[in-house]
Each structure stands twice: as C-alpha cells, then as structure tokens.
C-alpha cells in the first residue's frame, strides 16, 4: 500500500487523473491537507499535486480592470501584491494574517477556498470582494460566485473531481476600498470573529454601496443584504452602522469553542463591524 503521487503539468491532465484514480485528492499548497494526512484524519489513495501547473500561478489585471488570481498563488505573494488595490485590498489584508510566514510561503488561495473552512480568512474576504471562482471538472469549466460557493462547515459547491483553477475579483470602482478586520486570541490563530468590508462612495460622498461580511460566525460567511441596503445613500454615521451591525449579528450562528463562546462572539460582531467600517471609510493610499 501507499499513497500514489501524480504531478501533472496541465489542468487537463490533473482533471483526467482525478477521474481515473479512486479516492484521489488534489494537493495544492498542502498546508492543511498534509497536516490532515499526518494526523490520519484523511487517508487518500492518491495525491494529484498542482504545483507543476504553471498556468495556475500568479496574479494578473485583466483588460476590464478585473483581477485574476491563479489557484496556486501563495498567500505570501497575495499578501505582498501591489495589484490588489481599492476593494481588492481586502484580499491582500486577509492573506497577510493567515497563520504564519512559513505557512503563507506554501499555502494557496485555491487550496484555502476548496477546504471550505468558514473560520479561515479568505472566505469572508472573497465574499466581500464579490469574487467569482473558476472551476474545472470532468464536465468542463464553470464559474461560481463566492457567495454561493461556501455552503457549510468544510463543505463547498465543488463536486467530486472538480478543481478551483482561479479567483476573479470584479473591477474596483475608483472610490472603492476594502478592509479585513480579524480578531484572534493570538497572532496566527484562526479568527474568533472576522469582518470584511467593501464599499464605494458617490460623487456627493454618500455610500453608493457597501458589503459587510462576517467570518468565523457560522457554517458560511454571513451577509445581510437588508442591513447593507439600509446604509446606502447615507454617511455611515455611528447610529446607522450600529443598527446595521445588530441586524448582521442577529444573523450570525457562531460556535461555542476554544476561540470564544457563542455569546462572546455575538457581542464582538457589532463592535468589530463598527471598527471595520470606520477603517474602510478612512482608508487611503491603496
């Protein structure tokens, strides 16, 4: 026995191998998958490493101003990217606070989202950035919005044999900006609560639109359209933000675990939202 290792150089070969092997897993950066194998939480029969597929690596700005991040782009590269500005800065913020430097040197955005952990940093940030994921499988390619991708604890919209190949962030408007606020017990830990905010202002300096997404507070990132709509057209004054934050907190369903009790997390959510919205509102320079 043993675990077979395949190292294809194209997405086509990776998907084909996944269709042939029984109980195979795609191996991205390995920073979660290999840890799970080491602790025998999973025992796949084969790994299909994506590391040699050059087309899955790197960040590029498309002609329409949208940004494409290849699935095998490392957290460290995203954390340092100068291409992620305006609303897209949320994604860079999130990458900067994932675990520790050595983990960020190998961990990838494709692997992180495919794992579907709602306590991780990318899910809330990518929903707030209105990201779309490109997915390839035996039946071809499809796209899915981040907001529909994350479904439950460690459960995504991915079907057997499907692979996330990239993440696309829509063009950030000129007035667009973003911010990712993480509250954790210690540097590098998973969030107790995290809040990702994206917003754009009108020419009259009113809120054009705002997206507020809470992470680590339920089976998937939490977003309440009604609360966001109530802030549109306004100035983001403290009372209005507090009212929206209470609505969003009410929609959260946090776990009771070592990182915080359910009640504690519910108390944190509105405070962290207020902090994150203020930080987004005043963010300049990128």
């Amino acid at each position, binding site marked *: 026995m043993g675990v077979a*290792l395949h190292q294809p150089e194209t997405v086509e070969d990776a998907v084909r191998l996944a269709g042939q092997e029984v109980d195979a897993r795609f191996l991205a950066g390995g920073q979660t998958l*290999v840890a799970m*194998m080491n602790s025998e939480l999973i025992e*796949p029969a084969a790994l299909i490493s994506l590391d040699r597929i050059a087309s899955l690596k790197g960040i590029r700005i498309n002609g329409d101003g949208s940004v494409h991040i290849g699935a095998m782009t490392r957290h460290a590269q995203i954390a340092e990217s100068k291409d992620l500005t305006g609303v897209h800065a949320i994604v860079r913020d999130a990458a900067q606070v994932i675990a520790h430097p050595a983990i960020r040197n190998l961990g990838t955005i494709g692997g992180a989202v495919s794992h579907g952990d709602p306590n991780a940093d990318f899910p809330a940030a990518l929903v707030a950035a209105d990201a779309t994921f490109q997915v390839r499988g035996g039946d071809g390619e499809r796209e899915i919005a981040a907001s529909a991708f994350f479904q439950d604890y460690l459960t995504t919209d991915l079907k057997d044999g499907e692979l996330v190949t990239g993440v696309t962030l829509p063009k950030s408007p000129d007035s667009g900006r973003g911010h990712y606020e993480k509250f954790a017990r210690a540097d590098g830990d998973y969030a107790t609560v995290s809040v990702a905010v994206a917003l754009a202002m009108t020419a009259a300096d009113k809120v054009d639109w705002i997206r507020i997404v809470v992470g680590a507070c339920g089976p998937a990132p939490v977003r309440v359209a009604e609360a966001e709509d109530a802030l549109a057209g306004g100035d983001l004054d403290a009372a209005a933000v507090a009212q929206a934050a209470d609505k969003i907190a009410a929609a959260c369903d946090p776990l009771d675990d070592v990182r915080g009790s359910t009640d504690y997390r519910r108390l944190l959510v509105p405070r962290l939202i207020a902090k994150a919205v203020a930080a987004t509102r005043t963010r300049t320079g990128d």
Partner: protein
Amino acid sequence: MATAQLVDLTINGEEHEVRADGATTLLDVLRDQLQLNGAKRGCNQGVCGACNILLDGQAVRACLVVAGTAEGREITTIEGLERDGELSPVQQAFLDTGAVQCGFCMPGMVISAEALVQANATAGVEEIREAISGNLCRCSGYVKVIDAVRSVTGG
C-alpha cells in the same frame, strides 16, 4: 501496487536519492532516511515551527511538504547553514546572545531568522517578531532570540 518512487532531492548542496510515496513528507525523509535530525518533529501539524527548513530560500514546514514535490528545488536544513566549519552569522548570534534554552525549537527558529536576514538584511524588531511568530518556544525565551537577530540586522 507499490507506490513509493525514487525521488532525487538536493539537500544542503548534495544530491540524495530517497524512496517516498505521496504520504512521505520532507521531514520523514530528512529524519528517517538521511539522519538529518536537526529539523525536529514537534507537532507534525505545521503549528510549532520546529521542523522549518529553507525551500528555495524560503522558510517552510518540512512536515507539510510532500517529498516528491520538492524534486528540483534547493533544500537547506539547519545542518547546511555553516560554511567551511564556521557557523552562519545568525547561528553565531544565537550562541553569543544566549538565545538557546532547552534548544528544541532552535533549528526552526534559526531557519526563520535566516530566511528573514536573507530577504531583509536590516530587519527591525517588528519584522523579526513577525518572522519568528510561527515558532513556538515553550521555554518562552523569545526576547533573547529577538536580541540575537537584531544583533545581525542592526534593527
């Protein structure tokens, strides 16, 4: 079906042929096949940092790298830092500063510091703290580690 394959690895400038399957990590190869025991198996989960090595100059967890994926890459362990019998400046600084207590975390800590110094020769305190943030020292001896790295970077 036997799934272990022969894998050619470049470790501390030397070529090694090892046997590895998809569940064999670089740490397994280093410790169990090559007796390079500097990198420690602390948690085997990527949490403690005691197994840190340099992969193409970047600090990574040896316990979280599938050995076969490291073919063609330059692997440096704590054993490979000295040159001509001389400790690296970072190693010497740890010694001179008295940064070592029980020592278990030290190989990983030194590797993190090496990666930092190679990328940023004038790193300041905050950058040093960030660089070693993923290295747990259960003697809680972080202050002298930071002092040691500062003595190299002038930060």
